[in-house]
C-alpha cells in the first residue's frame, strides 16, 4: 500500500511502483475507449496547485482527473516572492480549509510539496519540485519502457544532459534502480551532481562510453539561456558533444529506444529526425502520462476520508 502522499520515487518501495504501474494498465485501457470517462472520483475535488508555469503536466493531470470524473480546479498563485502576499504554508492552509481530496503541487523550489504535505489534510501529489523529484514523470517513463521492452529488470538506462538541475533525472534514477535496471548518467562535468554515485548510478563524461550497451537512452532538456556560458560553453558545443542523433545512437544497443520528458529543444538534445521518429517514443510517454496520473489519483484521491485517530490514519 503506497503512502498518503506521492512526493518522490525515493520514498517508494518496489511493490508500490509495481502497484501503480498495474493500475495504469487499466487506466490506459479506459483512454482507448470511445467514452473515456469512469465515475471513480465523482464528487471528489482535485486541485492543481501550480506555482510554476506548466502547460503539459497540468493538462495531463487535468485530463486524468476529468477522466475519473473528479472536479478539477486549477490554482496558480504567483511564485514570485516579491509579488507574494502570503507564504507557501499560508497558501496551503487556505486551500486545506476548502477541503480538497487531492492537491497536485508544482513549484520551482525543491521541497515545497513536502512542506505543504506536512500541513495539509489532503494527499499531496508532487508534479515537480525544483531539481528534486517529478515522480509521475518517472512512473510514466517506467510504464513506457515496460511497454516497449516487456521488462525493466536487467536493462541499461542512460540519462544524458543536465542531471544536476533535473528532477526528472532524480526520479528516474530512483525508479529504474528500484526496478532492477542499471542506470548511467552522462553530462558535461559541471552538470553531474556532486556525489551522484551515492544515488547508485555510474557517471560518465564520455557519451560514447555511457551509451555502450544501453537499452534506453533518455535525453534531458537543456535550458539554454540560463546555462550556456556557465555550465557549458555554448549550445553548439553541447549539441556536438552530447546531442543525440542517429550516428551517436549507434553506440547504444541496436534496439535501444530514445526518450525525452519534453519539451524538446530540437537540434540541441535531439536531432530533428530523432525527435519525431522511432526509436524515439516521446509521444507514447505523453500518452502514458495520462494513464499514470489517473492511476495515482485513483490510488490516493479515491481513498475514504480519514477521520482523526481512525485506524489506518497515516499521520
Amino acid at each position, binding site marked *: 500500500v503506497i503512502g498518503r502522499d506521492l512526493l518522490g520515487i*525515493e520514498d517508494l518501495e518496489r511493490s508500490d511502483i509495481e502497484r501503480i504501474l498495474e493500475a495504469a494498465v487499466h487506466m490506459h485501457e479506459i483512454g482507448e475507449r470511445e467514452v473515456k470517462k469512469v465515475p471513480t472520483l465523482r464528487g471528489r475535488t482535485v486541485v492543481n496547485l501550480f506555482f510554476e508555469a506548466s502547460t503539459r503536466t497540468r493538462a495531463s493531470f487535468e485530463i486524468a482527473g476529468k477522466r475519473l470524473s473528479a472536479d478539477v480546479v486549477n490554482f496558480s498563485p504567483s511564485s514570485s*516572492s516579491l509579488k507574494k502576499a502570503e*507564504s*507557501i*504554508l*499560508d497558501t496551503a492552509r487556505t486551500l486545506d480549509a476548502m477541503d480538497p481530496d487531492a492537491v497536485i503541487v508544482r*513549484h520551482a*523550489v*525543491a*521541497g*515545497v510539496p*513536502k*512542506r505543504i504535505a506536512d500541513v495539509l489534510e489532503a494527499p499531496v501529489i508532487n508534479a515537480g*519540485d*525544483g*531539481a*528534486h*523529484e517529478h515522480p509521475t514523470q518517472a512512473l510514466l517513463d517506467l510504464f513506457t519502457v515496460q511497454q516497449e521492452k516487456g521488462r525493466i529488470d536487467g536493462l541499461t538506462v542512460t540519462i544524458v544532459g543536465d542531471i*544536476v538541475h533535473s*528532477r526528472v533525472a*532524480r526520479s528516474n534514477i530512483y525508479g529504474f534502480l528500484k526496478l532492477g535496471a542499471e542506470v548511467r548518467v552522462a553530462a558535461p562535468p559541471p552538470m553531474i*551532481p*556532486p*556525489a*551522484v554515485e*551515492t*544515488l547508485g548510478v555510474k557517471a560518465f563524461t564520455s557519451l560514447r562510453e555511457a551509451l555502450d550497451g544501453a537499452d534506453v537512452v533518455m535525453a534531458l532538456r537543456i535550458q539554454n539561456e540560463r546555462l550556456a556560458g556557465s555550465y557549458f560553453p555554448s549550445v553548439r558545443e553541447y549539441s556536438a558533444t552530447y546531442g543525440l542523433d542517429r550516428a551517436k545512437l549507434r553506440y547504444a544497443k541496436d534496439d535501444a529506444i530514445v526518450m525525452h520528458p519534453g519539451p524538446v529543444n530540437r537540434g540541441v538534445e535531439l536531432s530533428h529526425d530523432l525527435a519525431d521518429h522511432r526509436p524515439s517514443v516521446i509521444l507514447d510517454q505523453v500518452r502514458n502520462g495520462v494513464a499514470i496520473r489517473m492511476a495515482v489519483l485513483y490510488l490516493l484521491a479515491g481513498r475514504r476520508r480519514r477521520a482523526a485517530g481512525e485506524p489506518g490514519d497515516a499521520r
Partner: protein
Amino acid sequence: MSRLLIRGGRILDPATGRDEPGDLLAEDGRIVAVGRSLDGRGAEVLDAEGGWIAPGFVDLHAHLREPGQEYKEDIASGGRAAVAGGFTAVACMANTHPVNDDPAMTDYILDRARQDSPARVYPVAAATRGQKGETMTEMAALVEAGAVAFSDDGRTIMDSGVMRRVLEYSRLVGVPVISHCEDRTLVRDGVVNEGAVSTRLGLPGNPAVAEVVHVERDIRLAALTGAHLHVAHVSTAGAVEVIRRAREAGVNVTAEVSPHHLTLTDEACLGYDTNTKVAPPLRSAPDVAACRAGLVDGSLDAIATDHAPHAQHEKDQEFTEAPPGMIGFETAAAVVLDLVRAGELSPLELVRRLSTNPARILRRAGGSLAPGEVADVTVLDPDRRWVYEPAKGWSKSRNSPWAGRELVGRVVATVVAGRLVYHADRGVLVP
C-alpha cells in the same frame, strides 16, 4: 552591601585550573571567595545542588535585531534568552537596521542594553560603512563608544584590498576583526552543503571550499598585517586545517564554532525544515568530526551560538527564500555538553571554550572565578533532562532545529555582576 552565596556545586574555573566541590561568595558584584563551607551570613543563598559553578558564558556571536527588526528579537528579549542559556555577556552583530557603523548607534545599543538586558551586551561594529565592503568605519570613535570588535559578518568583505586595509587599520584600536568566511562567488545560490545531501534534496549546494579559500585569504592578510583576525563559525574540515597551520606559524588568528556545526550534519536538512537552513550550512559528518577535533586541540578557541532569530512567516517560505539562521542561546549549553558526554572534552575544558576563551578574545572581564573578578557566574546541571519548547523560551523567535527535542543539561541559574538574573524555576528576574 549585597552578598550572594552559591553553595554546594562543582567549581570549574579554567582560568585557575580549579575543578573541585565548593561554594562561591560574591559581594558587591565581585567574587570574594571560592572554597568549601564558606560563611554566607547575611547573603542571599543559591543552592547549586551538585551542579557546575562556572564563570559566566560569553557569546562571541549573536544577532539581537535591535534596532530595526524588533519583530524577530530585541535587546530585552535577546538579553533574557541569553541569561536563560547561561550567557552573562553577548557580542551582538552589526547587521541591524540601520547598521551599527556609527558611534551614535553603538551608544544607542549600549543604552538600550543598560536599561533592558540582564546580560552584558558587547556591540560589534561594522567594519565598513553600511556593511557595503567599501569604506572602513571610524574604528577609533567606535571603540571609544564601546565597540568590542569589527565585522561585516554575513556580508563578507569580498574585496581583498578593502579587507587588507580594515585589518591594517584595526591594529590602531587593538580589537579583533571578525570574518564570516564564505567566498560569495563560490557560494552563489547555494543553500545547503554541496554533496550527497544537496544532490538528494535537489537544492543548490554551497561547497565547503567556499569557506576554506576565504579563511585562507583572510589568514594570509592577517599574517601580512599582524592584525587579530577572528574567524566566525567555522564549519569545514578544510578551514580547521588552515587555521591549525596558521596558528602553528604564529599568525594572530582565533576562531569560533557554533553548537550546530559541532553536532548536526547536513542530513538534518533532508526534511526541508527551514530551521536547519543556516550560513554557513550544516556540513558533512567528517566536517563535524573535524570541527570537534579542532575545538578539542585548541585550533578553534570558542563556542559561539550565532543566535539568529527569524519570524515564523519568514521561515514558512521556500527553502531557497527563507532567511538563514537559528536561535541558539537557550539550547547551546545542553547541545555542546555532548562533547563532554562523548569524552572529547572535560567539563573544565568545555567551560574554557564557553567562557574564558571568548572573554579573552574580546579582551573583556569575566571568564574566571578568581577572587576579585566580576561575579558573572553560570550554574549548570549537566544531567537535567528537559524538552525544549521555543514557545516557552525567552526569545521572540522560535526557529530552532531542536524544537520539541529532549535535551540533557540545563542552566539552573545565571548571575551577572553578583545579581541573580535567571533561575530555571523562577525565570528571568531582572531588569
